[in-house]
């Protein structure tokens, strides 16, 4: 009934996943110079997207997307709406089932896994939604606790301490007992970030986290994200329209359009010297 529970879309002809060592080596070479990330010798990408295709009832949304994200890297995905950024993000933690292609988290294939394995893999992938999606019947504190208690099976008190720590980190310790409807949009999004971070995922996915917010509330959320990027060491994939944030924080900027990665590289490169015509148009349009 709910879209995320559906499975089994038709398979396209896609080459099988490459040998891990070989793939890592190729990606290593390819990504050198495209990102500020400092590579370790023999490092494997933490998220690997290979020939990813996604079709919604005959409308292709993603067409052969390939992307590698490295441990600790901050990747900002830009692009006009409808370019497939969000869909790609949702495919990474299986909220959408890819039509074809492979997604590997730490060399482990997530596509085509069993349901239980997917649930397990999702623990390593935090997600922050455009619409916050906090649980309205729980307080801010409980929102941050529930995943730790139910999924990580942490003792309640331990989870509470962790939750308070995360709420404090997003500047909302004094709102711990508030229910989501009593919080502003910006505050809700910060609680949502705390909820994702409290699970200590390996990768945290941001799906246009500031798009639903009033402009004056955007700053608080971006500050929290910036803080997270600079101090947590967590891998972040951020889909956003916030150019300044991308320029300041990103290790790498990926520009997508029409379901294809058009251009990627260091923020300074992409912003100041875009190579592709469409990137130029998009950035010109934004400015």
């Amino acid at each position, binding site marked *: 009934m709910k879209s995320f529970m559906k499975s089994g879309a038709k398979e396209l002809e896609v080459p099988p996943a490459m040998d891990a060592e070989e793939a890592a080596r190729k990606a290593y070479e390819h990504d050198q110079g495209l990102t500020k990330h400092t590579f370790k010798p023999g490092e494997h990408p933490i998220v690997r997207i290979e020939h990813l295709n996604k079709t919604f009832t005959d409308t292709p949304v993603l067409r052969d997307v390939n992307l590698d994200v490295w441990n600790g890297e901050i990747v900002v995905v830009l692009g006009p709406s409808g370019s497939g950024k969000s869909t790609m993000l949702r495919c990474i*933690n299986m*909220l959408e089932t890819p039509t074809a292609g492979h997604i590997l988290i730490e060399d482990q294939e997530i596509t085509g896994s069993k349901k239980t394995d997917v649930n397990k893999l*999702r*623990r390593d992938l935090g997600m922050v939604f455009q619409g916050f*999606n906090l649980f309205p019947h729980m307080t801010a504190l409980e929102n941050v606790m529930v*995943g730790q208690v139910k*999924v990580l099976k942490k003792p309640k008190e*331990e989870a509470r301490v962790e939750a*308070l*720590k995360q709420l404090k980190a997003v500047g909302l310790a004094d709102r711990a007992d508030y229910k989501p409807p009593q919080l502003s949009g910006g505050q809700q999004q910060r609680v949502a970030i705390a909820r994702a971070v409290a699970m200590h995922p390996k990768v945290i996915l941001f799906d246009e986290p500031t798009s639903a917010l009033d402009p004056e509330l955007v700053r608080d959320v971006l500050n929290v994200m910036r803080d997270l990027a600079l101090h947590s060491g967590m891998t972040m994939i951020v889909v956003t329209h916030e150019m300044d944030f991308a320029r300041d924080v990103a290790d790498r900027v990926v520009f997508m359009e029409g379901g294809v990665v058009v251009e990627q590289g260091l923020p300074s490169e992409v912003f100041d010297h875009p190579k592709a015509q469409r990137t130029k148009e998009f950035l010109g349009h934004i400015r």
Partner: protein
Amino acid sequence: MKRNSCVRLRALPLVMAMSLAMVLTVFVTGCSSSSSSSKSTSKKASEKIELVHKGKLTVASDLANPPFDYMEGTTKKGFEVELMDALAKKLGLTVNYLNPMKFDSIIPTVKQGGKADVGASNFTITADRKKEIDFTDAYIDSNQGIVTSKATASSVGSDVNVLNKSGVTVAVQSGTTGESWVEENLPNAKVVALDDPISALSGVSTGLYNAAVADLPVMQYEVKNSYTSLSVAKEIATGEQYGIVVSKDNPALTKALNKALKQLRKDGTLSTFEKKWFGVDYEAQSASAAATSTTTNGDAGSVVVSKATARPNEDGGDRVIGGINTRLTWEATTKVEDGVSSVTLKLPSDASFEGSTTKVTVLKGLTRVNIDGKATAKGNTVTIKFASPIPNGSLLRLEITDMKFPNQGGKYQVTGSYTTAAGVKGTLPASAKIKTISNTPVQQIVMWLDGQPWVTAWNSVPFLNMFFKPQLLVTSFVSLFGGWVLCLLIVVISYPFAIALGLLFAMMKISRFKVLRGLASIYINLLRGTPLFLQIYIMFFGLPMIGINIDNNVLGVIVMAINSSAYQAEIYRAGILSIPNGQYEAAASLGMNRAQTMFTVILPQMVRRVIPTVTSDFITSYKDTSLLSSVGVMELMMFSKNLTTTTGNITPYMAAAIYYLIVTLPLIKVVSIVEKHLADAENGVGPRPRGRAAKRVEAAEGEKGESAEQDAEPKDTSAFEALAAPFRSHASQEA
């Protein structure tokens, strides 16, 4: 804005009360004025027949008593139908039968006027009914019959007391002579009062009830034609007579009908009808019985007293209460060759016979002998002189209304004497003891009300008397209490099951498995697509048929639970579907599995959303328990229906309405409060949490301090510890 709404709220009850009062005043004055006008016309009408429709005799009947009155397709058929037709012709009218009505509503309908001129539906002429309406002369004599399955018929036939046991259920038609006979003679059996004799027979044939007691001709007809697996186990000689019900405001019609009836009897039409419908000419039989005269031999003979019972009072349940009017039934078989010319009954000195209304029934075998009696009451004795001597070997029944047992209650025997036609005196053997209980406070209130002038004034307004008779309101409240408790019990016990079943089927309906979805759909659609009434009938008559015998009340709980579960399944399903997709995604992204998502995220939110709808459904279920009265569950409607049938007054229904409202009004209020609360919560309006949050900040800081430099700041630590006190062991392990 807020203050405004507050003022409006406060003013609302006042406005409502005022408007209600205005409506009532208009209604009452309207009614009283119309009734006074009808009264003035009725004075004139003493010579003129009043009819609802000009040139038509409008008849109210339940049309459910074959062969007296019944529907065959859309045609009305039966002995009574033909009789009414013949009577109408004699009056120069055409007959106009109304659509079938419930038996208990016929007398009030005729009494109120405006809808029907007469009621004809096997109405036994009783003193109680005569208080409300007039009867024509009897058009047929009748008895009651006990119907059981063929297997048990012989044992019941030889001894009725086989049925006088707890655990035995006897079905009767509510408010009939059969019902009072069972109450008086089978006090240990459970009486189930139904709307019509046919459902009583259905119940016996499926095994739901052990026996049915109703009008003998109806029973004989049905057993012969439809319910062939049953048989009439015993005929009970009640010697009752059926009459046509006419409003007291229409004496001319009663007179005219009596005259026409006499003509029909004389010209043999009545005999023809009887032969046609019953195969027996009752007219000839009673004539021959009356003709058996005796020759004097001067022997005192003997009288065998077979029964002495008193009718339970309305508010005493199945008990006879001292100090208020009841009816004494005394039965004996005369073995006096000369015949008995008078009987004197005597009770202990503190009992009293107040009126002299005595019904004399003389039966030879099952045939009634028409003998009138004149009663003279004097303190604790009553003497009945018979117009002609009671023939030898007949059953004599005396029903003396308006007599009282002493206030304090106790066990009483009826003694007395008799005189033969030859003037010889004999002594009556003492009867069996009649158990009575002491006067209840309720009865004292009623007696006090009887004496109040305002009550008399109040009751003189026909509308108020019909709907809000104070005395009846008081007794109704007491009598209905048990029914109300049963209603509440049924719905309160059934509801948790309904919720559980509803959740189960809601989950099945949204399941991934096609089979489960299909099963849930069938269950929900069947139950929601058919009336509850039908489900009750199927369960109550169907289950015993396949050998499952469950107590009626338990079965009631089961039916209500199953019915309500289908509605709740839909409520829950809609509730679950109304939760936005983002909630599932958020839960999934935290790594929750399907069960965790359901139980920690979706269901708690769903529950909040459905509380108002579920409460409304609870109110509906509570009211729907009234439908169980149709199969004889002794709930609120059942009691009020019985009271209304015996009294012919609507007041018991009003008392029932109040009992329903006692529960529903507060619940309706609760729903509106909860709805407001939910709306507030969703909009983020409402009180902000205070105090605790601030402590948490300190606690969080304390925790930080702790990890930075262990036990450096005792103040911080204590704040944290205060918070973590209940979980101390965990916290210290962590540190």
